[in-house]
């Protein structure tokens, strides 16, 4: 069978090269421009008086408010306080979740005893426990840290548990043939094999940690980013409120990026 020349030729001839190289970059550029244009419209709308400034201040005013908070040191102080709350809660809840997930994953006995109550506590909405925590632990740092810890522990518990259950049993058999000790099995099989999914749990936990912090800081905080926002509400400083929200968002994105980098490192053998 012969192929007509006009049908065969499109396969043989190549599309002009510049077009091909431009196409993917074009979409990247458009993606980058879209939010910038939106910001420009917002700024322009504010300048023309189309957007009332006591409802939504112009981007330039929000940036100004931010610079002011940075210069007078209020942002640094708030970041430190909120940061310590999150770090303490993450450590406490993270260690609890990973340790419980590991023991439950490794032992059927722990699974039968520890997993049912964990699943029951998990069903409670942890943010709904705020009134209880205030009564139990007062209004200081402790209830905030404990609330973050509680929220953080479950994604890590569940992901660690299932990660350990999914370790290839053939590798354990191989380890037995090679004469590995328990510690060697833990280090060379369980940890590297479970790490990617545990890190997925860390990412979920981080999102919950920031969310919990935001809610906990709305209620009776006297320092931290939440306090900054609440205080601004009393003085009708919408620019500071929006700036505080942006800080929360940047913290969430930044910490997520750190964990994603760890994930890439844990999976580098798959490249």
């Amino acid at each position, binding site marked *: 069978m012969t192929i007509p020349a006009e049908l065969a030729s499109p396969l043989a001839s190549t599309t002009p090269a510049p077009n091909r190289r431009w196409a993917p970059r074009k979409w990247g550029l458009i993606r980058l421009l879209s939010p910038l244009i939106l910001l420009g419209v917002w700024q322009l709308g504010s300048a023309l008086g189309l957007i009332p400034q006591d409802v939504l201040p112009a981007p330039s005013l929000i940036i100004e408010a931010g610079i002011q908070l940075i210069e007078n040191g209020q942002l640094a102080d708030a970041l430190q306080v909120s940061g310590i709350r999150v770090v303490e809660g993450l450590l406490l809840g993270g260690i609890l979740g990973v340790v419980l997930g590991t023991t439950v994953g490794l032992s059927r006995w722990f699974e039968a005893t520890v997993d049912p109550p964990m699943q029951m506590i998990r069903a409670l909405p942890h943010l709904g426990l705020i009134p209880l925590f205030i009564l139990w632990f007062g209004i200081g740092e402790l209830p905030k840290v404990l609330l973050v810890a509680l929220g953080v522990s479950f994604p890590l518990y569940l992901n660690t548990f299932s990660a350990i259950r999914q370790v290839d049993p*053939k*590798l354990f*058999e*191989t380890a*037995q*043939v*090679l*004469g*590995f000790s328990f510690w*060697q099995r833990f280090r*060379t*099989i369980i940890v*590297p*094999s479970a790490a990617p999914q545990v890190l997925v749990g860390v990412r979920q936990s981080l999102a919950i940690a920031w969310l919990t912090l935001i809610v906990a800081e709305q209620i009776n905080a006297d320092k931290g980013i939440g306090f900054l926002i609440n205080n601004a509400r009393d003085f009708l400083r919408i620019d500071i409120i929006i700036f505080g929200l942006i800080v929360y968002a940047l913290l969430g994105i930044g910490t997520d990026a750190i964990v994603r980098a760890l994930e890439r490192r844990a999976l580098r*053998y*798959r*490249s």
Partner: protein
Amino acid sequence: MTIVSERRTTIAGELRHVNKWYDDHHVLTDVSLQVERGQIVALIGRSGSGKSTVLRVLAGLSTDHTGDRVVSGAPALAFQEPRLFPWRDVRTNVVYGLTRSRLPRSEARARADRALADVGLTDRADVWPLTLSGGQAQRVSLARALVAEPELLLLDEPFGALDALTRLSMRGLLLDLWREHGFGVLLVTHDVDEAVALADRVLVLEAGRVVHTLTIDEPRQSPGAPTEQYRTELLDKLGVQI
């Protein structure tokens, strides 16, 4: 069940009157076999005949059997899949074969490099196992099994997952290593040709019993040697009509 270590005999591994049950099911019935050093014994049988179970008993992976198991030192075992640790580089995987030897790290690395040279993979020592081809990964698995210089090598259909050409070159590599080091081999396979091509003796296992033993007069002849009689005999015992 007794485990005896006999260093001075030429026996690399032996089972005496081994029985094993899974619940009510009798998986191994009075299995006795011997593998001497410098000998290749093939164990052949249909799926479910208990081949792998025999291997697991000899490897020390089974605890609930009766009868005696005698092995010289710690036997090495290579599986059908390479079973490498994907998150450790190739050299470290081979070093794991020396876990029982408790050697200093530098000595273990040097031995691993020699074992990798033996299987022709010196230049792949630093790569991740997932970048290897199937045949290369199986060679690393062989290096890991042999790095501790075992006297008994147990192979569970080690070439079963490889393509035909790679399988042939792996057979050649196994024979080279075996001639050099002189360990005993128990080769579990369902490939009659492989058994005839490699073994001194072929045991046919059926429903957990050794039903036939075939001794090959002049083993490992060059290609084209008359092996047809052995094939026919084994296929007949396996119940295959040709």
